């Protein structure tokens, strides 16, 4: 089994490297009707959230002095708080070669395998996805606790219990149907919560864009899962397949293709977006959690 998988990966790699005049391959069919409905729903939800958030964010600006019942106002970020447009990237030469390696690996092996996987029946893929999501829930419980966000930690724990039992070992995500949506977290977020800056940009071979902090977080998450060794998965007979299957499942759920935009500046663009997104998430982390009690002494609007 193991040998067969390795041989077929090798063949796929050779196929990916072959330089023929023309290559024609089937890629997953588009489903415009379903996509536009799903996209419309997701957009509408996000848009509603953004509009609601705008109303909340506008409140302190209105300068209303009385203390509210709802969550206390967080000082708004001003344009001066935005990070500079340059990104701290002292390891750029390494990062660029890792980025190129990742792009080639993705094009030759990772993406074709993920596309093949996407032809498996939807319930099967959902099962695989839920299964790994459920294992990761353990790490979320630990990290929400370390972050002292017990409300979310409890939710993850409930999800873990419900999905492991009623959801038959995590194959079905029943908890989401019980209005307990999954919001995974990890050690990188824990580090961020306690004030650690992302540090230098880092492109991890095979994994992709990251920062030093996020990379450390990833290692710690893996270490925790390896240490706990749920159901003997991480140190048993099937452990060699676990990582690849998890990776393929993740890849199949990400709509990104290296250099699909053809741009010579893709490295710069991705770096810019990745780091800004993480910094905004960090800002959210602090903004959401800091004021535990009504901030009566903090003047509104500051």
């Amino acid at each position, binding site marked *: 089994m193991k040998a067969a998988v390795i041989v077929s990966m090798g063949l796929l790699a050779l196929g990916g490297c072959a330089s023929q005049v023309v290559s024609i391959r089937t890629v997953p069919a588009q*489903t415009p*009707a379903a996509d536009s409905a799903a996209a419309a729903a*997701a*957009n509408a939800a996000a848009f509603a959230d953004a509009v*609601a958030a705008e109303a909340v964010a506008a409140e302190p600006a209105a300068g209303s002095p009385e203390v509210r019942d709802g969550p206390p106002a967080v000082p708004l970020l001003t344009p001066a708080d935005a990070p500079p447009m340059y990104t701290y990237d002292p390891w750029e030469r390494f990062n660029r070669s890792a980025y190129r390696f990742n792009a080639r690996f993705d094009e030759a092996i990772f993406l074709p395998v993920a596309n093949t996987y996407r032809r498996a029946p939807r319930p099967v893929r959902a099962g695989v996805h839920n299964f790994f999501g459920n294992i990761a829930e353990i790490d979320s419980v630990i990290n929400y606790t370390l972050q002292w966000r017990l409300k979310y930690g409890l939710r993850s724990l409930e999800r873990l219990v419900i999905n492991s039992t009623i959801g038959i070992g995590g194959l079905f995500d029943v908890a989401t149907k019980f209005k307990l949506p999954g919001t995974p*977290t990890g050690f990188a977020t824990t580090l961020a919560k306690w004030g650690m800056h992302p540090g230098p940009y880092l492109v991890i071979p095979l994994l*992709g*864009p990251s920062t030093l902090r996020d990379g450390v977080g990833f290692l710690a998450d893996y270490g925790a899962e390896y240490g706990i060794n749920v159901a003997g998965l991480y140190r048993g007979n099937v452990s060699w397949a676990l990582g690849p299957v998890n990776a393929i499942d993740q890849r199949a759920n990400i709509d990104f293709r*290296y250099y699909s935009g053809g741009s010579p500046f893709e490295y710069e663009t991705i770096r810019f977006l990745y780091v800004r997104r993480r910094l905004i998430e960090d800002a959210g982390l602090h903004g959401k959690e800091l004021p535990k009690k009504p901030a009566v002494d903090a003047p509104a609007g500051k």
Partner: protein
Amino acid sequence: MLLIAFALVCSAPFAIQAEPTELPPQLQPAPGPATGLSDSAGLRATVFGTPPDAMAPLPAKVPLYEINMTLPWRLPVPEILWFDGKLRVWLSAQKKPAPLAIVISGTGSDGNNKTISVLRAALYGAGYHVLTMPSPTFSGFIVSTSSTGVAGDLMQDGHDLYAAMQQIIAHLPRKVRITDIDLLGFSLGGANAAIVKSIDASEGKLKIHRVVMINPPVSLFSSVGRLDRLFSATIGPGEMGVELLYRRLYAQIANLYRASDRLQLDQNFILSAAAVTLKTDAEFSQAIALTYRLQLVDMFFIGDLYAKTGAVIDPERQPKVGDSLEDIQRDLRAKPFADYFTKVFAPYYLKRRPEATSASLIAANRLDIIADALRSDGDYYAQTNSNDLILNKRELDWLQDTLGSRIIVYDHGGHLGEIGDRQQVADMLDMLAGRWPRSGQ
């Protein structure tokens, strides 16, 4: 960790505007507002596209082949563009014999974006084989297919497109049986499609039947010049204005995210947060101007690299894999399209066409180089909008006068914001099938 918020690319607030350099008189933007014919609704539609409830019904499933080709005339691929060496096009094939519709993408875009997917689905649903191609101004096309490396010349790009189409069709699987060939294109792709048909009319290698241009420009340089002007008017000349734009957007998105109860910043939320912050015409204009500018940056870079004109890249010390390109990118974002013309395009083509002048190069990039064909050949059709920002009144009048009953002008949609709506799709299919103008119109 592979998760990447890629969405911001289109609305990413990172551009620097320099003072416009001296322009030849022909390049001075056409008079009138920088937003062309567009009004408030037109700007909004240009940014947001067709609303979901106005969309034409699309098929549940559209099969897709990805075709990667190495073209025999390809120029040597610069090492830093190693990923662009093959032309990538997309085919959705019917199981039975059917006409082939070839769709050409708009400025700087590839053959598989959102707009083109809508057209592909509509055409496939109507029984066409659909082949979607990148714009000749798309990086991947310039490197893999262009015979010059300097994109933007309508005739030259048309010949490259035409040659590539022949190669692709010759290599299609035998089970794809083609009964007829029609062309479509949107934005710049519309003009490309019309030019390719006119080339085919004299060379006759593909026997292209009908052409539908969707929101085509009339004069390439006056349209892009207007967008340059929009950029400097709304984002502002000088570095400060742009840095402020970026900072303002960053703070707004961060504040919205903090105020929401979301625990992760996903693509939908970023886009929605950006959308919520867009309120005024000026903000819509900023988004549009920035999007265009970013689409031109790659073409400018590659053109300079190939033509060795030294506008931003020292021809003696070309960047290698592993070198940072950030400063070059920032430098390019500051440059208007006029700079591409004066520093790369014109020097390159003037050297190769001794009889040409700057003025003649600009004149050659107008749709009226094929005015006779557009007027007399009944197989050219167009769809456009009365509030399209890449046109002015004179250009729209010219299109209507030249195409007569073969153009339809909608009163909404701005630039490309009508693509996929029921009326647009129904009219496009009727035009392609030769049922236009409908009886009674």
